[in-house]
């Protein structure tokens, strides 16, 4: 095909969310290798990915977004981490380019914004799921909620969890840790001293590793709960061989789609850069699967629009549906959020260093 359609990949490759952003990008890139062309309005188009690094920062996001717009992309995918998405939204809106959020779970990304859609569930949902899970499975009465100071993802998810958990009659102890904190002994000690039944720590993987390590070495016996960010092989290797229970909610469970799993594993293993970006092994992260689905959702939208014009794609998106590896994707007509009512709960198997499926959990 001679024609080209550009899809923008607006993801962090550096900064706090660099690791997650790269895994998400991998999913998109793999999808692109699976379906390098798309037929729009009867013409075959090559799909070209335009990748920019938003550095996980609200301050750098506008230039990164403008860069995509200037390159003439028809639709944008991303981003991991809500802050950068929110900061870039006006740029996309002004340029009339639609964006599909992959794993930005903060409600404010799409709220009141016609151009931002997303395929993941939201923090209120995720927080509630986890609170229910804690109450149902562990009969937890007291939760220790540890969030990162100044991190809206962390604070938001912590907030929704606390609300739901208190709604279920539980008690919550709130704590925050500052940026760059490495020593979590004091926090875990507080959790133990307070007699918490579960620890809920919606944080980046970086802190997660340290939290897991400290919890194990301080002999904390209560389970550790976290949101989608912890669904990463980094967590698995941190938990490996330790006496600790780590539960996460997530979008995808490896093994959910054999074909996808084996395909992407092969693809990752074939290229050292990809392997490095995936953290040196071929475990499939949920965000990767989400990236994969986002790409196909975008292709569907392009097909529906019958044109590469961003405006047409925006028009077409609300009614676009797609069956992805993480489930069926459709957008609600309030904000353009994904219609999803279940999340997967997984536990880290400390012997095999794999995720074990626990349950599908809804809000009720």
């Amino acid at each position, binding site marked *: 095909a001679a024609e080209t359609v550009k899809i923008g990949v607006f993801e962090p*490759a*550096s900064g706090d969310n660099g690791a997650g952003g*790269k895994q998400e990008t991998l999913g998109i890139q793999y999808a692109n290798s699976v379906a390098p062309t798309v037929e729009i309005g009867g013409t075959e188009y090559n799909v070209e990915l335009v*990748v*920019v*690094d938003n550095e996980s*920062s*609200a*301050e*750098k*996001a*506008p*230039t*990164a*977004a*403008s*860069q995509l*717009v*200037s390159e003439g992309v028809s639709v944008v995918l991303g981003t991991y981490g809500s*802050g950068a998405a*929110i*900061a870039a*939204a*006006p*740029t996309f809106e*002004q*340029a009339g380019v639609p964006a599909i959020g992959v794993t930005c779970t903060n*409600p*404010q990304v799409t*709220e*009141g914004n016609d151009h931002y859609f997303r395929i993941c569930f939201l923090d209120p949902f995720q927080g509630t799921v986890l609170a229910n899970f804690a109450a149902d499975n562990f009969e937890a009465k007291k939760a220790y909620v540890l*969030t*990162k*100071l*100044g*991190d*809206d993802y*962390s*604070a*938001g998810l912590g*907030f929704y969890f606390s609300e739901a958990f208190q709604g279920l009659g539980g008690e919550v102890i*709130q704590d*925050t840790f*500052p*940026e760059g904190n490495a020593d979590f002994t004091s926090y875990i000690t507080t959790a133990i001293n307070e007699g918490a039944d579960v620890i809920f720590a919606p944080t980046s993987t970086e802190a997660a590793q340290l939290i897991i390590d400290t919890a194990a070495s301080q002999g904390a016996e209560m389970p550790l709960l976290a949101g989608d960010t912890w669904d990463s092989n980094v967590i698995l290797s941190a938990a490996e061989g330790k006496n600790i229970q780590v539960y996460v909610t997530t979008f995808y469970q490896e093994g959910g789609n054999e074909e996808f799993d084996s395909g992407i594993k092969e693809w990752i293993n074939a290229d050292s*850069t990809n392997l490095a*970006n995936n953290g040196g092994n071929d475990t499939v992260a949920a965000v990767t699967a989400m990236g994969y689905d986002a790409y196909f959702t975008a292709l569907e939208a392009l097909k529906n629009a019958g044109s590469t014009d961003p405006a047409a794609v925006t028009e077409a998106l609300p009614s676009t549906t797609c069956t992805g590896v993480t489930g069926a994707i459709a957008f609600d007509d309030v904000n353009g959020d994904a219609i999803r009512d279940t999340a997967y709960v997984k536990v880290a198997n400390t012997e095999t260093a794999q995720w074990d499926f626990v349950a599908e959990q809804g809000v009720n």
Partner: protein
Amino acid sequence: MGKKKNIIISALLLLALLAVIMILEQRLPATHIALTVLKKGCIYSLVAVSMNLLNGFTGLFSLGQAGFMLIGAYAYAVLTIPVDARASVYQYFHGGVIQFSVPVFAGLLASGILAAAFAWLIGLPVLRLKSDYLAIATLGFAEIIRAFFQWDVLGPITNGSNMLRKYPSFTSVTFPFLVCGVCIAVMVLVIHSSYGRAFKAIRDDEIAAEAMGINLAKHKRMAFCISSFFAGVGGGLLAMYQSSIQSQTFKSAMTYEILLIVVIGGLGSVTGSCIASFLFIACSEWWLRFLDVETKIGDFKVPFLRAGFRKVVFSVIIMAIVLFARKGIMGSREFSVDGICKFFKKRFGRKKEVKL
């Protein structure tokens, strides 16, 4: 005579620049990267000049700039979010406690005033400190301010760790250019006033300055407050530019970045700070982006190119500038028509007696 002519020519040049920008704006799509870089560049110019006023002209080594920008940004955002949008912004805090909003310019003014007021308070204890001790104390204050703004208890005002948004922002480049231009012009006026000379005297020798009857405490505080005022306004503009803010943005890394700009531009050179700001932003966020993308020319895969390479190259460029242009691009000179003429005469004309 010569001086007046210079001022006129400089003013004309500035007008021409403004015209170019307005034309660019007409020609390019509103979200073009060039325009975005221009917007950010001029905001950074303002902040860099404000830092230069302190570090370069008064010799007060302060690393609190990000803190004052944070205050400015929050002041602007908190005060200008429309009342009906507050419920959704302050979603975790039941709409917040502030239930009014002020116009844009009042908001920007408030940014500056609040930052200056904080500076005044902070200045009382810390301005007695010398050089590096002052630096670390101001850096510390910036961190403390950040922790405060993230504090849950203040959430109804600051929205805690969550972002503020939905306040009025700008879309055209002309707006930040005009605001920053006026602010920088005011700072230039200060620098060239009698007070500016006093600042420079303090920089050169505090004891001698005091012996000349210059009240150190008063003048240092003055410089600190002026600098913070404009850093605050810069913060407010940055908030507008980003259209959402979060205290996390204003980390000490931001201060270092501004300091880099100031030194690369030349300590004690206003135009140096401005030029360096644009170059810095354009380089780090625009021109070098291609380095992040794996590229194949034919079958040949260009080595090294992948995510992160841009930043490596960028840091090398910075190091090179620092090492080879020790006094920055402009040194302590200013960009002027006269200067250019002299430069060319020196380069291409016959070598006359060179004066230092």
